[in-house]
């Protein structure tokens, strides 16, 4: 169990979130699938789209930031795996590499990884739409750390105080 007292900002609950925030959080995952379609031959397009989406929502609520950051970092492994598959395939087609059982095994493992990424992405999008936090294994914890941990300088930030005019 993680210690959440004092070190982390409190989590927003579903009834504290606006519909817009829930839809923006859901969009982080759904946008990825649109980008996958566009970027199939070039796996990096997918990652670029995730980074842009994260920066657009950087000033949004922690709920949206958490989901867009989780969606972003969860894209990295599949991007790398797909880039590896592409690199390997191109060497077979244009170079002197050969199709062997390692290549076939890699492609199948890559397909399974992409399917898992897709299914989990759909689940996370549905949860986000309901205002629920859905934590991916590994990536969920990283995203939580990134968005919710209270950094030492956070409480020292000067918050402007409104005062009445000098009467």
């Amino acid at each position, binding site marked *: 169990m993680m210690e959440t007292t004092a070190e982390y900002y409190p989590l927003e609950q579903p009834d504290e979130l606006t519909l817009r925030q829930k839809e923006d959080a859901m969009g982080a995952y759904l946008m990825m699938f649109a980008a996958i379609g566009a970027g199939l031959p070039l796996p990096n397009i997918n990652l670029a789209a995730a980074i842009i989406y994260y920066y657009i929502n950087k000033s949004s609520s922690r709920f949206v930031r958490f989901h867009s950051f989780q969606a972003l970092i969860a894209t990295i492994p599949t991007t790398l795996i797909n880039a590896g598959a592409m690199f390997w395939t191109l060497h077979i087609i244009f170079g002197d590499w050969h199709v*062997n059982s390692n290549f*076939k095994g890699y492609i199948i493992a890559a397909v399974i990884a992409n399917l898992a990424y897709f299914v989990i992405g759909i689940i996370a999008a549905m949860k986000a739409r309901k205002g629920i936090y859905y934590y991916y294994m590994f990536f969920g914890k990283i995203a939580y750390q990134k968005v919710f941990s209270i950094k030492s300088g956070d409480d020292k930030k000067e918050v402007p105080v409104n005062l009445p005019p000098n009467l």
Partner: protein
Amino acid sequence: MKIKKSITRDLLILLGVFAVLWVGFSYIPFFKSDDEKVSLLSIANEERLGKIITEAIEKEPTTKICSNDVLDSAMLLIKSRLIKNIGLTEYDYRIKVIDKNDINAFTVPGGNIYVYSGLINFCENPEELAAVLAHEIGHAEKRHVVSKLAKELGISILFSVLSGNNGVLISEIGRTSLSTVFDREQEKQADEFSYALMEKSKLDPKNMSSFMLRLREKYADAEKVMDNLEWMSTHPNTNSRIKSALEYKTASGFVSSPFTLDWTKVNESIKKGNS
């Protein structure tokens, strides 16, 4: 710290799952390529298969094995020089001469090599024949022969031949051994193997290029066609093979030690026939 541990554990699990999937699927025989399936056939079984095939080849009425004292001792001399320098080998090589005018040599499973008398006559010296034999040994050592048969006929056919004598299948395998060429990569590997083996055996690897040069002259017109089709052809053309043999760099201080054989006498012994 607790969080870091939990994150690291998660990461290791994810990497582990991917690695297990990759390795697991790589090991399923269904996904193995023809070359890799060959490893399923043990050397002992390959030897058995070779015995069945050689018996079938030699039983054919058109096959006449050439054997006489002069030829046999020359072949033994060349073979032993090469075998001595292979290093560790799992095959017990048998080289036989078939009385036929074609310039050809082929290898069947289990380290059985057949050379046509036409090829021996075509060689200007025993070193050229050694280069051809080293190339054929290369195909056997790298298991190209079984791989080719597995690709052409299917590995299951090879196993079924081993489990029972099927005359039709055996003669089919014999024909495939004779007729089909290896793919470009396999030919290249066998060539590279032969250059290295020639060097170790104190024989000049350039003998392969002199052999190929004369072969090109002989088949000049046919080669012209092949040159234009090189990209499509699976067999590396003679020009690139000559080039690679000429470009092969022997170690500094390499001195060749040619065979002390009366090559004219060997050729004449073939013409005279069996003794």
